[in-house]
């Protein structure tokens, strides 16, 4: 592999990881269009490389969030049961689905994420001290004078939706954070900070389930994946640091415009125009 190409891939991994970490995504939403449209990889090759980049991004971020207690590891494990089933099914389906279908599915995920960022307001959780039960967890975000608790709601339907998120994640190479974060926050009443951190933890496990299949079947471009992963790890640490410094709220709308532009390019690629 040419050194220039390695540097480009490292830069792509770093940039996507920084943006993904700041906006609560895995980074795949950036990896795929760059790899397919920019570097000419087939969609299935790009998905495999992207999954490795997502693992580097999410594991780097999750290692920090788990240590600080923001990640709800138990909830993550529970939701990951059905998400993994979906991811495994998606990985098997991806080998039999045409490139244009994968690209179309990816564009749909981009548009969904963009609409989500434009229209969905961040859920504000009031401090509370619910009675302890199996799905109630402690929560401390610095705004409450005491450590509050939040009770996870709609667990069964949340588990079902996670199966669909897993299928999409594995088939398109997107980590699924764009679906999981709003699912946990809006549908399951998990505080936003906990939802984002738990999603980061889950994204890595979901991506593992998909990536290991590509790896075992030898359908992974090792040098591309390595360069992307190195950049993504560095980017995840930079992104974690930057996200502490800035208010990402107003930037969500600008980022949604970027997502729609990328979706348009992907749709042109899927239609054979590009």
């Amino acid at each position: 592999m040419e050194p220039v190409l390695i540097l480009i891939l490292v830069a792509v991994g770093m940039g996507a990881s920084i943006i993904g970490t700041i906006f609560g995504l895995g980074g795949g939403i950036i990896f795929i269009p760059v790899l397919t449209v920019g570097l000419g990889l087939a969609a299935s090759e790009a998905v495999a490389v992207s999954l490795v980049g997502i693992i580097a991004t999410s594991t780097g971020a999750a290692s920090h969030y788990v240590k600080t207690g923001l990640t709800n590891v138990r909830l993550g494990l529970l939701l990951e049961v059905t998400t993994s089933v979906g991811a495994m099914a998606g990985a098997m389906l991806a080998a039999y689905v045409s490139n244009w279908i994968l690209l179309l599915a990816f564009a749909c995920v981009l548009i969904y994420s963009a609409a989500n960022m434009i229209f969905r307001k961040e859920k504000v959780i009031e401090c509370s001290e619910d009675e302890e039960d199996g799905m109630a967890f402690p929560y401390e975000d610095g705004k409450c004078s005491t450590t509050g608790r939040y009770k996870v709601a709609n667990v069964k339907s949340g588990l079902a939706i996670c199966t669909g998120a897993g299928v999409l994640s594995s088939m398109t190479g997107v980590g699924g954070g764009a679906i999981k974060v709003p699912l946990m926050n809006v549908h399951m009443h998990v505080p936003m900070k906990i939802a984002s951190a738990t999603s980061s933890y889950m994204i890595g496990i979901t991506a593992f389930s998909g990536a290991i299949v590509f790896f075992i079947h030898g359908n992974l471009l090792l040098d591309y994946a390595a360069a992307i992963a190195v950049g993504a790890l560095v980017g995840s640490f930079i992104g974690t640091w930057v996200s502490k410094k800035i208010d990402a709220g107003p930037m969500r709308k600008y980022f949604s415009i970027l997502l729609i532009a990328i979706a348009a390019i992907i749709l042109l690629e899927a239609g054979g125009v590009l």
Partner: protein
Amino acid sequence: MNAATSLALRVCLFAGIILLAAGLLLSEQEYGNDILWIGILILILSPFLGILTTYSYLIAEKDWKWVKVATVLIALIIIFLAVSLLRS
């Protein structure tokens, strides 16, 4: 549990990334691809090793409800890996 899980993730992550960086630098050598292969494998496995670390702590804490959840998740992953290996 959280500290140990975080440590497991970081150790695997950094081990994988160091091997990947070395593999890229030595890509012209015959063994460069082998280093990349090992590095990618370690990196990909890191989330799963994180789960195993959490699992061992849940057992140690006798948190049986969540041990069951983690057992189902690990079993699902292992079954799928076995199927994938048999198919390849």
